[in-house]
């Protein structure tokens, strides 16, 4: 056991058991998997990704390049760091060999996001962040403070003094003050991405430890919009690359200190501290105080006076001008290979822990995400923030300010607490590696990438860091090069003989640390992935046993199968009912736009291909809308309600797009037009009552309306009321049959629908769905926009030249019809296809080829004539039929073409697109 009494912020009164690689270990609340393992002198059974070498724990937090574990229980989660996984009872993890494993079952845990707004967001609750938050909160700002560790204080260990008190007392007092000031303070919350305008994403780990979460979410993404973002994320210690530095037992110096003070764990008994920086002296003395035998090897010619003195007080030998060249050992370090700076001699210094420290890299990633520049500072051997976007600040170690007294001052200004100044600090010696065999000097331990790999990259002709990164994979692992990135640049600079500032850098990208997909999905799963839109009549359809189809976000009743019916049977039955008696369909999803104002006719004349100004009040006209390119964009009926008022209907899928399109023209192109548009899609529900008996049904329900053909002609509308509720009736048919559309406020739609169904009962009124509607309209050759068109089809191609006004000087799209391609006789045109066998239903989407004498396809590429856009069994025709877009189709009427269906070539005859009642006799009943 390497647990040390008197150290650590763990709860020793309770124990937890975690299982790592099949062995159960006891730890305490407050431990991580890494600290539990180190407390038992153990490590995860990791192997490296390329060479399969053993890997241990390399650091105490997210910068660890090696200590990866796979969580198996309570739920599999891949590639987490032992140093960041909190030890909870029953946790089962194992070491990984470079790849994680996903669960085979869905994750039932809940995730969410929450929006937060504040004046100031402070990232990091170390000394800099706490003081920055305190200063802002005292000034009356609304403050959010996030920090990724379980407790505030950052790297403070308790040995420091702030405002004359032990540092952790200062931390506790400050946390209490922040709470009193109303600061939203979130620990275990990692700010992982920073976007424009103060937008920061932070992942809160709320309950990895709690097995029974109830309805609460396991992780939450806070979407924080801050007036000002203060990055106080600290710094990441930089190692020095030596031979075999990937061996378990090599660790960052500050991490060993962190493990001691946070978890009461001594990571080694025989410790060599190899440093080129002052901070590691504190690690040396703290570990010695806790019982380790420590030796300090300082690469610099001079050791810091205070540090040396404190070492001497404890009997810690300090050798200056001395380098560690490598490590010895099998599965873990047993000795460091040591030599003087000026000598080639090597000696082995036995140890079970080699601590390395080559200085500190500011963790300014969040400033970089949003475009902040970085500038290399040769004094600290690292990049520090340069030019920052407005309302972004970086303070403390993240800004390259490493001395506690300076950090506090920088973060707090005149209000700052004080700490004793550093005594005689020695400048950092910037040292990327020591002399040694480059094939065994690991630059990125996570990727098994060595100095030799960098050498090969340079030898291959690469000079840019991005190339070297991609050639060697340095910096691409789970840690995204938190410790290796700068060293790779330093070594690249060395190898190419350039100063590091000329080498350039790679770019920090979100996220700062990995984030689970599910956390980013948040609540948008299952039914909440995307809204299910339903009409006012939905409950009726459900009760009637409807099958639904997704049309955009809408769910529309597709058909209403009766017992034993498949869709084909149900649709044949529904079609027959409409053609022979009466059916009823919910058409409420049609888009509806109230177009009002003196210039309403002008607007519609410009946007529809046909004339709408000539439409008389009380009448209805079918209209086609095209884009500037002249291709059909939408269609629908237009009711003229008054001289200055129309009701425009659109297709279901295009309702929003058409309104947007009309608003765009109106607001940006013709703002002088006195017209206003109002969406009334959901204001009005529509029941389509269709079939020869529809007149009876409507006449029964609306007894005071004269529904005769003479009084109520085709393509006219009338207002009436039912029990005092206004109702609009319109004779509009999408089936060719006598039909009425009944429009009522959606409040009353279910009640009115029931009345219609009741009144239709004597005629066997049959509810029908979208599939039947599609068949009926196809029998009449009416196209469905988006099914029989694909954005490349003009009204002329659809055989709707009649809907394209020749009287108007212009309308949107008109000019495009004069383009050469629009006059191409081989444009595809909408026609019908009747399979000559009278039996085959051609699959929709099938391609059409020219007649082949031998009944076989020629070798590819086979010229295609067009494709089948719609295809159905027809009850009325007692055979299958199809609509198709065929090159020069209207010139080919009567021709037989072929359609590959599976391995067969099915012959089909081209015909007019209208197959049922071409003379239009049925529409008047």
């Amino acid at each position, binding site marked *: 056991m390497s647990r040390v009494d008197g150290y650590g912020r763990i709860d020793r009164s309770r124990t937890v058991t975690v299982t790592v690689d099949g062995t159960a270990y006891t730890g305490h609340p407050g431990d991580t998997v890494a600290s539990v393992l180190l407390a038992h002198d153990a490590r995860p059974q990791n192997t*490296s*990704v390329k060479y*399969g*070498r*053993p890997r241990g724990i390399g650091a105490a937090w997210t910068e660890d390049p090696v200590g990866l574990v796979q969580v198996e229980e309570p739920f*599999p*989660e*891949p*590639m987490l760091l032992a140093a960041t996984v909190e030890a909870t009872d029953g946790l089962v993890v194992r070491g990984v060999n*470079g*790849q*994680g494993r*996903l*669960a085979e079952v*869905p994750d039932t*845990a809940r995730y969410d*996001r929450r929006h937060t707004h504040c004046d100031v967001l402070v990232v990091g609750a170390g000394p800099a962040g706490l003081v920055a938050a305190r200063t802002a909160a005292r000034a009356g700002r609304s403050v959010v403070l996030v920090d990724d560790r379980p407790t505030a204080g950052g790297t403070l260990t308790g040995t420091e003094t702030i405002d004359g008190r032990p540092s952790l007392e200062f931390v506790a007092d400050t946390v209490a003050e922040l709470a009193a000031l109303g600061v939203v303070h979130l620990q275990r919350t990692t700010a992982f*991405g920073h976007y424009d305008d103060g937008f920061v994403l932070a992942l809160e780990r709320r309950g990895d430890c709690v097995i029974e979460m109830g309805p609460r979410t396991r992780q939450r993404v806070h979407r924080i919009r801050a007036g000002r973002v203060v990055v106080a994320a600290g710094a990441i210690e930089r190692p020095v690359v030596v031979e075999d530095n990937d061996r378990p037992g090599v660790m960052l110096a500050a991490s060993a200190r962190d493990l001691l003070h946070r978890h009461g764990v001594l990571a080694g008994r025989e410790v060599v501290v190899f440093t080129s920086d002052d901070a590691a002296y504190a690690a040396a003395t703290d570990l010695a105080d806790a019982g380790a035998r420590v030796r300090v090897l300082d690469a610099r010619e001079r050791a810091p006076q205070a540090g040396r003195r404190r070492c001497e007080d404890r009997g810690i030998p300090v050798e200056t001008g001395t380098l560690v060249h490598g490590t010895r050992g099998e599965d873990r370090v047993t000795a460091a290979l040591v030599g003087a700076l000026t000598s080639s001699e090597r000696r082995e210094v036995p140890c079970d822990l080699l601590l390395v420290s080559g200085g500190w890299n500011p963790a300014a990633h969040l400033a970089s995400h949003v*475009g902040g520049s970085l500038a290399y500072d040769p004094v600290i051997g690292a990049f520090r923030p340069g030019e920052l976007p407005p309302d972004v600040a970086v303070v403390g170690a993240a800004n390259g300010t490493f001395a506690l007294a300076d950090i506090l001052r920088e973060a707090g200004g005149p209000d700052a607490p004080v700490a004793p100044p550093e005594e005689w600090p020695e400048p950092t010696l910037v040292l990327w590696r020591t002399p040694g065999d480059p094939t065994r000097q690991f630059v990125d331990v996570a*990727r098994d990438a060595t100095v030799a790999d960098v050498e*090969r990259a340079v*030898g*291959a*002709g690469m000079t*840019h860091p991005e190339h070297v990164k*991609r*050639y060697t994979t340095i910096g691409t692992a*789970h840690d995204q090069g938190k410790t290796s990135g700068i060293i790779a640049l330093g070594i690249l600079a060395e190898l190419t003989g350039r100063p590091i500032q000329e080498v350039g850098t790679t770019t920090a*990208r979100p996220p700062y640390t*990995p984030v*689970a*997909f*599910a956390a*980013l*999905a*948040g609540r*948008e*799963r*299952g039914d909440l992935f*995307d809204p*299910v839109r339903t009409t006012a009549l939905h409950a009726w359809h459900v009760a009637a046993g409807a099958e639904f*189809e*997704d049309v955009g976000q809408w769910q529309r009743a597709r058909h209403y199968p009766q017992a034993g019916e498949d869709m084909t049977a149900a649709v044949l039955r529904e079609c027959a009912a409409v053609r022979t008696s009466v059916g009823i369909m919910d058409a409420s999803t049609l888009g509806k736009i109230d177009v009002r104002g003196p210039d309403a006719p002008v607007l519609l004349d410009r946007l529809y291909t046909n004339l709408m100004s000539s439409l008389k009040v009380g009448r209805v006209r079918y209209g086609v809308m095209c884009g500037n390119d002249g291709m059909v964009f939408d269609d629908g009926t237009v009711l003229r309600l008054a001289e200055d008022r129309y009701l425009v209907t659109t297709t279901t899928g295009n309702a929003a797009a058409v309104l947007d399109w009309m608003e765009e023209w109106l607001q940006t192109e013709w703002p002088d037009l006195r017209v206003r548009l109002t969406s009334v899609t959901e204001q009005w529900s529509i029941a389509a009552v269709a079939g020869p008996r529809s007149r009876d049904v409507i006449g029964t329900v609306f007894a005071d309306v004269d529904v005769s053909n003479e009084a109520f002609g085709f393509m006219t509308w009338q207002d009436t009321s039912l029990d005092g509720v206004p109702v609009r009736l319109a004779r509009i048919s999408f089936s060719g049959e006598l039909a009425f559309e009944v429009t009522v406020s959606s409040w009353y739609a279910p009640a009115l629908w029931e009345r219609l169904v009741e009144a239709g009962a004597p005629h066997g009124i049959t509810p029908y769905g979208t599939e039947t509607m599609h068949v009926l309209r196809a029998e009449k050759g009416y196209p469905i926009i*988006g099914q029989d068109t694909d*954005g*490349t089809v003009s009204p002329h191609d659809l055989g709707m030249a009649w809907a394209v006004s020749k009287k108007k000087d212009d309308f949107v799209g008109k000019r495009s019809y004069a383009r*050469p*391609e629009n006059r191409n006789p081989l444009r595809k045109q909408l026609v019908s296809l009747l399979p000559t066998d009278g039996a085959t239903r051609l*699959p*929709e*989407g*099938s*391609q059409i080829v020219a007649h082949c004498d031998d009944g076989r*396809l020629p*070798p*590819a590429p086979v010229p*295609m004539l067009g*494709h089948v*856009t719609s295809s159905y069994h027809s009850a009325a025709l007692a055979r299958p039929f199809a609509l198709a877009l065929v090159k020069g189709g209207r010139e080919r009427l009567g021709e037989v073409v072929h359609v*590959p269906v599976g391995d067969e070539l099915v012959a089909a005859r081209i015909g007019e697109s209208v197959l049922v009642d071409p003379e239009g006799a049925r529409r008047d009943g």
Partner: protein
Amino acid sequence: MTAGTTAPKPPGADLPEHPDHLWRDAEPRRAYDVVVVGGGGHGLATAHYLAKNHGITNVAVLEKGWLAGGNMARNTTLIRSNYLWDESAGIYEHALKLWEGLEEDLDYPILFSQRGVLNLAHTEQDVRDSVRRVEANKLNGIDAEWLGPDEVAKVCPIVNVSSDIRYPVQGATFQPRAGIAKHDYVAWGFARRASEASIDIIQDCEVTGFVTDADRVTGVRTTRGTIAAGTVALCAAGHTSTLLDMLGVRAPLQSHPLQALVSELLEPVHPTIVMSNAVHVYVSQAHKGELVMGAGVDSYNGYGQRGAFHVIERQMAAAVELFPVFARAHLLRSWAGIVDVTPDASPIVGHTPYENVFLNCGWGTGGFKATPGLGWAFADTVAHGRPHPLVAPFGLDRFVTGALVDEHGAAAVAH
């Protein structure tokens, strides 16, 4: 170096070693027969085929930053040829055939892996469009099948084909020959071949203007001096408009951010490529084990190589919806490229008003997969001074005549 144990081979052990020499970082000379502007995949492939197929080697490839550091370094490496229209199928299938022999041609392990692509259909209209595309592909000699949900699950067992998701999978088109390749290696392979052919690859050389003489361009002004050019081949993707502005030429291009992301390394779970337009996500698992994903373009023009996070959040929601096992995979890194999109979602290749300047742009999200095919055809175009038949349908004049190749109508398949 040996493994400490006899455990199974680590996942990174079999990745190929790179050659010891890739390319020569050249100093610009004063004049070249052909100056290729843009050292991405298309520029390098064009250079390679100029040398290989046409013996033209007095060529410079000018790159404003680091070689292949634009969209080539940022794309999600999907390769497929199952496009709807004959014109698109022609160029992409030609590319796919070249991909199938590219490792040999380049003598470089580009990790081309033909693992197939599923394009999922979630609505009735998706199904129609899918069948239409499959049937067209077949007649064009492109491998394509329509699969029902059960067959989808056989090809990719982790796809949720149950009917209780918001937009149930109704089926998918499947192109078995589709695949992925390692984007950097592809670029480096072309660069290496071009460099071997003594073509000059010039990095950190940004074009700042053109020297013109009536309807000819005689030279290219760069941050490293003016370079005389017999012919200029523009392969600058998202930056094309900037170059055309210098020439006073207009093209219907808009540059948008397009984001992509990767997970950490994972044990193999995803054997193929899955794309879904309806829920906006596409995923493959790369050789080392990371999930590589992308979504739709950000809506507005942007050269910032940054996109909005809500696009990624939405994509993650779609991914977890379609692949429940991805729930605890982790987003490791996200980034953005700049894609140049055209009104009909098809590229623009061919003549410009300058007789010796040829244009290649507007590939949107399709650039990577076309790389060898475009390079092959564009080199031929440059060498002969007229559009190769495979790229002829993609001339700038189609926007005037109306003969568009509209790939976002029925096919509506991005990437």
